[in-house]
């Protein structure tokens, strides 16, 4: 499984209408089963890049290769359908994937159990806390059963305690399902905590400004010294990028 390329981005450029260049000459190749964190300051084009990978938008120049099955996506807002219960939200994904009506319910409940939400299956999004909503969104993304999972700052709106927990949750799911994950964040420690590889994007235009690989990803905690050390290094580079924009 290892070594196969899941996503290949080649000399990618993106510009909205007549606006400035948002992404410029981005080259990236992500292996199957890899957990890559995309890091960058606000407005540097992280979401744009993710949307391009997801096929929600088309590149201006360059090319993107993704698996034929496509990618599942999770956003910062859980974007659950507010009129459906947690289970029905997951079932919607199954239905759109083409799962037979009879199998949907069981599978949805199983997926909710994966994110420890079996008890909240019949609750509606507004009855769930932010962390629970994101876990439902994760279950929904898993329901799509696509080899690639794209995540756009999925934990940014959560409080720190919940976020720490969901880091563990996500790592567990990743290890268990072997998905290829591209995780967008502007939290340096989060990237250092989660990723096997951290890719730093520069701003205006977005370019790859740095890349770090983490050797041992098991038993990491956000307080681990190796995470802190890497964070200091990445922060240094990131602040350099930010300072470039002050002038």
């Amino acid at each position, binding site marked *: *499984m*290892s070594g196969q390329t899941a996503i290949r981005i080649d000399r990618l450029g993106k510009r909205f209408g007549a606006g400035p260049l948002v992404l410029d000459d981005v080259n990236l190749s992500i292996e199957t*089963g890899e957990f890559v964190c995309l890091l960058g300051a606000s407005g540097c084009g992280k979401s744009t890049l993710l949307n391009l990978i997801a096929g*929600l938008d088309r590149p201006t120049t360059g090319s993107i290769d993704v698996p034929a099955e*496509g*990618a*599942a*996506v999770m*956003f910062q*807002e859980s*974007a659950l*359908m*507010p*009129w459906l219960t947690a289970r029905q939200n997951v079932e*919607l*994904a199954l*239905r*759109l*994937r083409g799962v037979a009506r009879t199998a949907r319910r069981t599978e949805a409940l*199983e997926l909710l*159990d*994966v994110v*420890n939400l079996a008890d*909240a299956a019949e609750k*509606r*999004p*507004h*009855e769930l*806390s*932010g*962390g*629970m909503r994101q876990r439902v969104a994760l279950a*929904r993304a898993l329901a*799509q059963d696509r080899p690639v999972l794209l995540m756009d700052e999925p934990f940014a709106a959560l409080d720190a*305690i*919940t976020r720490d*927990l969901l880091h*563990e*949750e996500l790592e*567990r799911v*990743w*290890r*268990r*399902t*072997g998905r290829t994950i591209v995780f967008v964040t502007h939290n340096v420690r989060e990237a250092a905590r989660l990723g*096997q590889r951290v890719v730093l994007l520069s701003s205006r235009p977005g370019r*790859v*400004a*740095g*890349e770090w*690989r*983490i*050797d*041992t*990803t*098991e038993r990491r905690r956000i307080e681990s010294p190796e995470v802190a050390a890497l964070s200091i*290094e990445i922060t*240094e*580079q990131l602040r*350099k990028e930010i300072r470039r924009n002050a002038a």
Partner: protein
Amino acid sequence: MPHDATLLDERDAAARAAAADLARTPEASARTADHGHDDLRSLEAGLDRLQTSPDRAPSAWRRFTTSVLPPILFVVALIAAWQLYVVIAQPRPDIVPGPVDVFNAIVLGWESGRLQLAVITSLERGVVGFLIAVIVGTPLGLLLAEVKPLRRAVGPIISGLQVLPSVAWVPAAILWFGLTDATVYFVVLMGAVPSIVNGLISGVEQVPPQLRRVGTVLGANRTRLATLIVLPAALPGYVAGLKQGWAFSWRSLMAAEIIAMGGTIGFGLGSMLQQSRELADIGGVLATVLVILVIGILIELAFFAPLERRMLRRRGLLQGGTR
């Protein structure tokens, strides 16, 4: 670190192998597969418990005393003051009738059967007219909401039509349809359709773009996106439009009934109002105004309010949803 430096380390094979190992575990029976999962599970359960507080709906008695009782008391006080004024100041009964006169007028109308007839006629017309407006307005609204160039062209016109008082259509309708029920229905349609169309358009416009994107990501085609996501999401706007459409139907109906009397037009509340006016019967006029008001409020309370409340509560858009 220079701008284009990359720190690549290829020694991640071990981690990858471990991941692959775990990925082989079937999802369904995963309950106890992971190491430390139980710990996580109890932590998550605790946090979930802490972060969701059960909806404590206010007690029925509290709701009654805070929101039902005060207006009733106010109305009773108002009526008492009115009766007192009539008793003390003895105004001319053809200018300021007492509450008793108005009540008598209602009783009289009831006993003669005119009141029931008028209420039934008006309600029937109002409801039928409203339903026609819904049948006409819904596809029109959907069309305008989904076809953007069309919306750009027709949308402002429809909004403009909402500004036009529907009474203004009465004279034209009388010339076109004579004093027949068609006149009444035409006026009701001209009043209600723009509201319904606008409600639907704004409902669709207010669908969070994120929901559409999720739909696309989940693999929905155009039709399924519309039926499974956009339409349910636009429901609050649609219901608001329907509610407003009903208000306009009722208004327009009264206008049409008051102005277009005679001919083959049936006897509705508007006609009753106008008749009372012609007989200089202020008690009858006020009684009819009261009936019109009460019916308007009743329809809203009995039909639209629960519909809207249920929908909003389901979506947590009502006060009482915790977050």
